[in-house]
């Protein structure tokens, strides 16, 4: 009896403690669509890297969270969040009212604007000049929203693609006259193709990227916001920004 | 009587297997020649070389002086002069009896349809099947199908008719009706070469009988010579097994 007690008790205590510790350190799955250079993309070594990746890693470290990043196609990324396949999403997601109805966002981690990519010899100066032309966007992105608002949701002039690289290829082949997307991504892609250039429409509003969690997941949201505030305070955010965009990091609003 | 078919030193190999080892033969106009012999002797292959269904490995086959296997020969034109009747009839199942018979004359010779149909009716009367003119082959008995096949071949008014074991796939009671048609043809003066096991027919109708064994033409002669006074030992042995 005594021997059994000697073995069982420590074992039981260990299991209890280990279980508790394990529960606290549960690995969180991060969904990111890795075709969004420079925010999230796959490098030749098949690792997911980018601005978003560095941000979430820094935030997780400050908040004491274990994370694993999984490449999730943009098309199903919100569905994955809702059914629990991923715990949070960081993928160049613009915070807007429509999305806030269905999901919860952290404070901003990037300031963005929409940008138009066109051929070098295009005379377009802004969104209005694209009327009647073929415009490429990523399905369901902010660019899609803007184009739909301007030209009509069911306009046959809007051509929707699953990812930015495909839309840019279409532009390079003259399949569309312009592509509308987030400035970070469009600028990067355009400089890869010598025959393309960017056009900035001053009417495009300032937008912000946020980390997305399932609606109502306050616990995780608070942890992420804490981490985010921390990296803004101690200069980590500015350092990451400089690494990826070679410029001074803009100040971000708290909400 | 002019020579319709002339065969000189015909050889045929299927890979390593030598099926015909040098056949010399000649068929004159209005002759009826029967080819007999054990299975595997090459009789069918020989027949099929005559209209080019089989390639020759050596030697020549001349039909009306035209070499069958030559590169420059228009084989289709040659075949329209040679009628062939097969063991398994090979009627076209998706066409009526009438269409089976009129297909070749209309498409190959450009005969007007009405004329071809008239001719078809005459041929069906000849083979005794006018009432079946609108039926499909699968509604006919074997003997009836073979008679239609004969009419179909005759529609092209060939100079010579080849028969490849025409009654071997028939039930015994239908053999007679087909042989009777063939006999009528012979009596009308058609040049015919018949590969068959029907010795009675050969004796009654043939002008000449050829006995083949193991790819060689062993003996040939009139039916009386072959059946009553065979010279070769192999011929005797074959006949004693059959008769």
């Amino acid at each position, binding site marked *: 009896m005594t021997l059994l007690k000697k073995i069982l008790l420590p074992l039981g205590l260990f299991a209890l403690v280990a279980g508790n510790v394990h529960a606290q350190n549960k690995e969180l799955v991060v969904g990111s669509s890795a075709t969004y250079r420079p925010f999230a993309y796959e490098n030749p070594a098949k690792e997911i890297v980018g601005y978003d990746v560095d941000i979430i890693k820094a935030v997780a470290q400050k908040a004491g969270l274990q994370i694993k990043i999984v490449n999730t196609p943009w098309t199903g990324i919100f569905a994955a969040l809702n059914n629990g396949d991923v715990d949070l999403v960081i993928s160049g997601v613009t915070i807007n009212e429509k999305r806030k109805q269905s999901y919860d966002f952290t404070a901003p981690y990037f300031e963005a604007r929409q940008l138009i990519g066109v051929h070098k010899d295009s005379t377009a100066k802004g969104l209005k000049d694209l009327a009647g032309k073929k415009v490429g966007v990523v399905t369901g992105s902010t660019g*899609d*929203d803007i184009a739909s608002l301007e030209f009509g949701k069911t306009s046959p002039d809007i*051509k*929707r693609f699953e990812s930015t690289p495909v839309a840019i290829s279409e532009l390079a*082949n*003259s399949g*569309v006259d312009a592509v509308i997307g987030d400035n970070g991504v469009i600028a990067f892609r355009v400089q890869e193709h010598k025959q393309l250039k960017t056009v900035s429409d001053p009417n495009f509003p300032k937008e912000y990227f946020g980390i997305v969690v399932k609606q109502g997941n306050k616990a995780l949201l608070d942890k992420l916001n804490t981490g985010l505030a921390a990296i803004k305070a101690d200069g980590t955010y500015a350092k990451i920004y400089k690494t990826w965009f070679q410029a001074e990091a803009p100040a971000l609003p708290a909400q | 009587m002019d020579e319709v078919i002339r065969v000189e030193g015909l050889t045929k190999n299927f890979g390593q297997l030598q099926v015909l080892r040098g056949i010399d033969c000649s068929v004159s106009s209005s002759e009826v020649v029967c080819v007999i012999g054990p299975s595997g002797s090459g009789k069918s292959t020989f027949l099929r070389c005559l209209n080019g269904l089989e390639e020759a490995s050596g030697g020549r086959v001349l039909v009306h002086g035209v070499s069958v296997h030559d590169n420059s020969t228009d084989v289709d034109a040659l075949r329209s002069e040679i009628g062939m009747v097969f063991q398994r009839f*090979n009627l*076209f199942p998706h066409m009526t009896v009438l269409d089976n018979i009129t297909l070749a004359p209309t498409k190959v010779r450009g005969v007007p349809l009405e004329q071809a149909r008239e001719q078809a009716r005459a041929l069906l009367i000849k083979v005794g099947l006018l009432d079946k003119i609108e039926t499909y082959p699968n509604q006919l008995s074997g003997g009836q199908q073979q008679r239609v096949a004969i009419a179909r071949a005759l529609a092209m008014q060939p100079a010579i008719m080849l028969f490849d074991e025409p009654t071997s796939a028939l039930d015994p009671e239908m053999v007679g009706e087909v042989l009777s048609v063939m006999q009528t043809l012979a009596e009308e003066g058609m040049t015919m070469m018949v590969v068959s096991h029907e010795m009675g027919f050969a004796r009654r109708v043939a002008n000449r009988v050829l006995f083949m064994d193991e790819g060689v033409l062993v003996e040939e002669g009139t039916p009386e010579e072959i059946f009553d006074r065979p010279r070769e030992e192999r011929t005797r042995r074959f006949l004693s097994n059959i008769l």
Partner: protein
Amino acid sequence: MEPILWFGWFRADIIAEYGVMFWRGLQMTILVTVICIAQGTALGLAIGLARLAEARHSPARQICRYLLRWPSTVYVSFFRGTPLFVQILLIHFAVLPLFINPADGLLISGETARSLKQNYGAFISGILALTLNSGAYISEIFRAGIQSIDRGQIEASRSLGLSFARTMYHVVLPQAFRRMLPPLGNNAIALLKDSSLISAIGLAELAYTARTVAGAYSRYWEPYLSISLMYWTLTLGLAWAVKRLEARYGRGDTR
């Protein structure tokens, strides 16, 4: 639009909102399917016959072997051996830009090329890929169908003096056709469903519409269930048509 809820959760209003697009998408799907079935069948017949081409004497013998049998065998192997999705992308982004390009198209260039690409680029690529793909499968159906016809039929026909071409046309193909109807019907149905892949290059057909709606509202049941029902209806219609054909061509066939 006011949300219209069916069964308490199905938002029929977002389907109605994109109604025009669904209708256009349905028409496009039907158009693509019909065109590719027709072209694929013609191509399949030609390739199927090419695979069987034989001649007794040179030079026809060599022509048959090297210009007909070998190329057609390679073609069939490639288009059956690579994914249709890859073929679509390859043709749209690599092959077509060689021929239709504003800068240096081998076939068409300049302004014509630009407007052609924009208005019909995805359409042309999609039709081309789908035709080539189904042509390969259909050629195998024809080849097998033709070869299944008893040799005696060909021998009897040739013995009557009918040429190879006439033998095929009057004797072999009519018989083979009835046998080929079931696999041809299956192929047509597969083609209808495969047409959804062309949405990836921006062709506005049914699947594209569903993705647009899903992207705009982050709701998946409504659009995908709707197009599923539409595809199902179309395939049922196609299957019924094939059955009617089978009944019609059944007269007087072999036992």
